């Protein structure tokens, strides 16, 4: 099957102020999405996530590059038929009720009135808005608006969901519910494009990520590869012997070639090393009168990956700012 979304060499430069000073929001970003894929589009504030999405949806014209949605040019309105989008700040007509917002959206998708009448209450019920269906949006809380946003994004039974920071502004319970919903949507076979700057929020949902920093994609690919999940690391806690033996044991353990990091406390030390080198560590510890007392698997998190990548690219590009 062909690609759901293909972005090649996307760049966007805004012109600001009287002098039309250029502000580069996105610079030469390329990626693509397969059917059923969940792509995390990550980056700190102002890194160009929303700008990229607006280019994909035709709200703004790219300065350079080509975007294909379901194989069609993103400038064609029909290309968006199978897309469900929730903006960063889901604002809807506050004089409307959720049912009316959805009815309006349903009309834009060319859904028959009969079908709308049936689906809309179902969908709102499904998203926990059943109790608020007959109230105008004016009095809605942020979380309730978010639910309306999700409801309108699902009305057309989309194959591709584009969610811009859907977790922001939700309480922990809301986040958990949204994460569960996203997992469900993924299991239904939909592709999801989701942005966030809180990496742990989407770490468990995504198959692959694009990491953006100052408009540039600094890392891209399957999450497992990026996080080097195949190379499992462990953190071992070792109880050290007392007296003269202590320093000798520390020296001997740190000298092991597999050790990648270590910290020392009063009677113990922590050592980080590849999991397959643990037996070696255990044997060496016993030799010097120390004991391996605890072993924890260590997983590289997106936060660490991001910090590592952002720092390396920043130092690579010198004082760009």
């Amino acid at each position, binding site marked *: 099957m062909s690609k759901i979304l293909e972005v090649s060499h996307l760049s966007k430069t805004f012109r600001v102020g009287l002098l039309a000073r250029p502000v580069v929001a996105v610079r030469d970003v390329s990626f693509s999405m397969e059917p059923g894929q969940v792509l995390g589009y990550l980056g700190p504030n102002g890194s160009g996530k929303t700008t990229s999405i607006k280019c994909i949806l035709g709200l703004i014209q790219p300065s350079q590059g080509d975007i294909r949605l379901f194989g069609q040019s993103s400038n064609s309105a029909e290309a968006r*038929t199978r897309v469900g989008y929730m903006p960063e700040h889901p*604002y809807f007509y506050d004089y409307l009720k959720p049912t009316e917002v959805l009815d309006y959206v349903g009309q834009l998708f060319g859904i028959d009135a009969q079908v709308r009448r049936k689906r809309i209450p179902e969908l709102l019920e499904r998203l926990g808005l059943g109790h608020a269906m007959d109230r105008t949006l004016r009095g809605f809380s942020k979380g309730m608006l978010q639910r309306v946003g999700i409801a309108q994004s699902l009305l057309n039974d989309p194959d591709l969901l584009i969610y811009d920071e859907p977790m922001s502004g939700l309480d922990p319970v809301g986040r958990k519910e949204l994460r569960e919903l996203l997992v469900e949507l993924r299991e239904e076979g939909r592709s999801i494009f989701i942005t966030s700057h809180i990496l742990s929020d989407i770490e468990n949902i995504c198959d692959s990520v694009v990491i953006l920093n100052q408009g540039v994609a600094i890392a891209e690919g399957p999450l497992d590869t990026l996080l080097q999940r195949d190379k499992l690391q462990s953190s071992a806690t070792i109880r050290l012997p007392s007296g003269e033996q202590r320093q000798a044991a520390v020296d001997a353990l740190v000298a092991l070639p597999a050790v990648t990091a270590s910290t020392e406390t009063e009677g113990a030390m922590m050592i980080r090393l590849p999991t397959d080198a643990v037996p070696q560590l255990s044997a060496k510890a016993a030799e010097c009168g120390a004991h391996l007392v605890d072993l924890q698997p260590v997983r590289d998190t997106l936060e660490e990956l991001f910090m590592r990548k952002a720092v390396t690219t920043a130092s690579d590009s010198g004082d760009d700012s």
Partner: protein
Amino acid sequence: MKTKWQGIELKVHGPRASLGRVSAVMSNTLRETGRTRAFYGVLIVAMLLLFGSVILSDLALVNQKARLVQDFGLFTIPLVTILTGVLLGVVLLQKEIEKKTLYAILPKPIRRGEFLLGKYLGLCTLLLLEMLVLALCWFAVLALRGGEISAPIFSALLLSYVEVMLITAIATFFSSLSSPLLSGILTLGMFIIGRISYIIVDLMNASKGVFAEVAAMRWLGRGIMVVVPDLSAFNISDELLLGWPVTPEYLLHSIGYGLSYSAIFLVLGLLVFERRDLT
């Protein structure tokens, strides 16, 4: 319960689907503009003015009372409706951008042209309703003063509505490229020049005066004639006053003239709106 539905049908291709989207935007715009406080303010003031013309007519001679009410209505109703059109037209797009409601709507399979047309037609519908309400008040007052509600009065109202549509199209055009305040000023400028442009024609055709004698002024005059529609085409108060007939040809010609100009301004507005980055 699942959110996945089997075989939901999305009709997005073809002219019928397009019309469906325009009408969706249109009815939402009617609802939105119909909730503006300014609209009801203007409407109530206009109604009071119309009813007030009864008192004013007491000052007139007995056989002039109905005439005064008629003239007052013919002057007030288009003016008030046009002002409403300008007031709401210049914020038509601005409001959606400011309230960020546009960003949820345009990513749906709708073209910007359909959106703009729907917004415009929604506002025109509201203005039609406003005009009908005012006309009913006016008819009541006319009846009270023994005036006759004749066929030419309906022709006059019809032409006024075409003028309203035209000015609203101009307001929509300006609002697609500048701020509401500037758009308002420019639209009102166009309206005033359009209302008096027949004077410029007279001046250009006269044997004396700057418009007739200075070449640059003649060019300016011609430029104005092309850019600014001649709104006197929609004013048949002289015919009404003198009891001259208004031919169907004249009506059709004026309606065609007004709608063509409206279409031109809408297309120009779309050309600007289409290219605009909505950030």
